């Protein structure tokens, strides 16, 4: 199986199959965490690390994994890396960890990580799997940054805690409902960019989110 080029692999995770805006996966933590850019960044970086490490591990270990029990083993691998990342975050960023720590633990159950291991890493060599993990992780990070900065700017009038607009323009944006609105509007933007580029809409996009 010939692997696609590095650029294709990374761009796929960032845009064409962006976990949040295209595949509509992990919406619950995405909505819950992105009330501010800082929180979003933390979860984004955590997911990025776990995704890359898990994809690489799955690809490295695939000769030793019996296909019949591959899914439980994948979950174990994810749990291993999540625990590591969780402890590091708890040790070095205790303040933010107090707010989003719960969702860091929940990364174990993120569909996107397991699906990339199952669909890609378990069938491909190590280097493409790494790139795929980097692409998907960056895609999630991008989603967290976009949603987090938009919601914080519109909802609290600040970015990273620095006040930009003196009032709180639209409190709705930092509420859960506003999170769904924001993600929906960014999904629409992604679809619109595709339309402008003259591409067909991907089947997983928007409407099913």
């Amino acid at each position: 199986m010939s692997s696609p080029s590095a650029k294709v692999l990374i761009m796929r995770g960032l845009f064409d199959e962006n976990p949040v805006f295209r595949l509509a996966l992990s919406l619950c933590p995405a909505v819950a965490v992105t009330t501010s850019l800082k929180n979003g960044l933390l979860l984004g970086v955590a997911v990025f690390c776990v995704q890359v490490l898990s994809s690489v591990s799955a690809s490295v270990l695939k000769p030793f994994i019996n296909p019949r029990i591959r899914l439980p083993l994948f979950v174990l691998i994810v749990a291993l890396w999540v625990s590591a990342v969780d402890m590091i975050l708890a040790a070095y960023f205790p303040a933010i960890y107090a707010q989003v720590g719960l969702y860091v633990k929940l990364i174990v159950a993120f569909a996107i990580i397991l699906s990339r291991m199952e669909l890609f890493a378990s069938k491909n060599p190590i280097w493409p799997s790494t790139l795929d993990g980097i692409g998907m992780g960056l895609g999630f990070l991008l989603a967290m940054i976009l949603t987090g900065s938009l919601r914080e700017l519109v909802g609290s009038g600040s970015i990273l805690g620095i006040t930009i607009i003196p009032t709180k323009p639209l409190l709705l944006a930092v509420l859960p409902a506003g999170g769904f609105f924001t993600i929906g509007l960014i999904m629409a933007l992604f679809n619109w960019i595709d339309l402008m580029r003259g591409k067909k809409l991907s089947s997983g996009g928007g409407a099913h989110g």
Partner: protein
Amino acid sequence: MAAEQKQRLTLSFGPHIHYPLGRSTAELMWTVNLALMPALVWAVLIFGWQALALTVSAVLGTTLGEMAMCALTKTRVTLRDGSAVCSGILLAFVIAPGMPLYMPFVGGFLGIVLAKGVFGGLGHNIFNVALIARAIMMATFPVPMTTAWLVPKFGQIVPDGTTMATPLAVLKEHGLDAALALFQQMPDTALGALAPWEKLMLGLRPGCIGEVSVVFILLGAAFLLYKKVIRLYIPLSVIAGTVFMGLFSASPMLHSLAGGLWLGAFFMATDYVTSPITPRGQIVFGLGIGLLTGMIRIWGGYPEGVCYAILLMNIMVPALNEWFPPRRFASRFEEVNA
């Protein structure tokens, strides 16, 4: 041949399916707008010009939202059909009269864009646009939305800004006696002192701009019924449901007269796009709204529940249309002969 067929098949959006052909969306919508005027006049009479200014602000917001969405989606500008204006007036009718003027503008704009525009415009919206706009304002400006209730006073041009709680809020927080005592502070008419229920019927109480006066809402509703714009299935079942739930509360009288029930029943729940098409479906829809309204008021966290009850039942409309389909022509005949 092809040209002939093309002429025969005329497709147009929305509401016409409920009622006899030959009536345009614009005609229906402007009739509704006209029917809302008595309640608006009453609001200006007791809350001052602020009520009118807020209404204009909300209509400007919905109008601008409609124009923006039409420009963005490159479709024909649908302002003339009056539906955006209607949403604007209805939005202003369900907000507190003492709010800052820019707020209904923001709410109306976002409501049209998020609840109607992104779904594809009139006829495609799942939720009542005015109520989504209200829900957005409730989430965005929670303090003015729940506290800016002006004290009604005849002939105040510019309100003096004194506020008080609504009867249902007082009932929820301080009990029935406090709620009834509130009516002693309300002005009386030249005819002499009025009982609480008479003040509620006339609209001498703090509340949303368009919801306070049951009499003037009924006047508009009677006009709509006369014009055959709405039918009674939905309003009556909404009222029946709420009154039934009122029996479980401290005061059935306050529950049926002191909230947004009448405005919601006649003008919000009857929205063509977001209500079921068959009478049986409409009755179930209306009862659902009434029961949910009572549940939210009595056991829920909010003093008033009409808005969320209607929005929740809006979600059920596709299912209700499926469960209660129109009876096929001659289907009863088939059953008899089967």
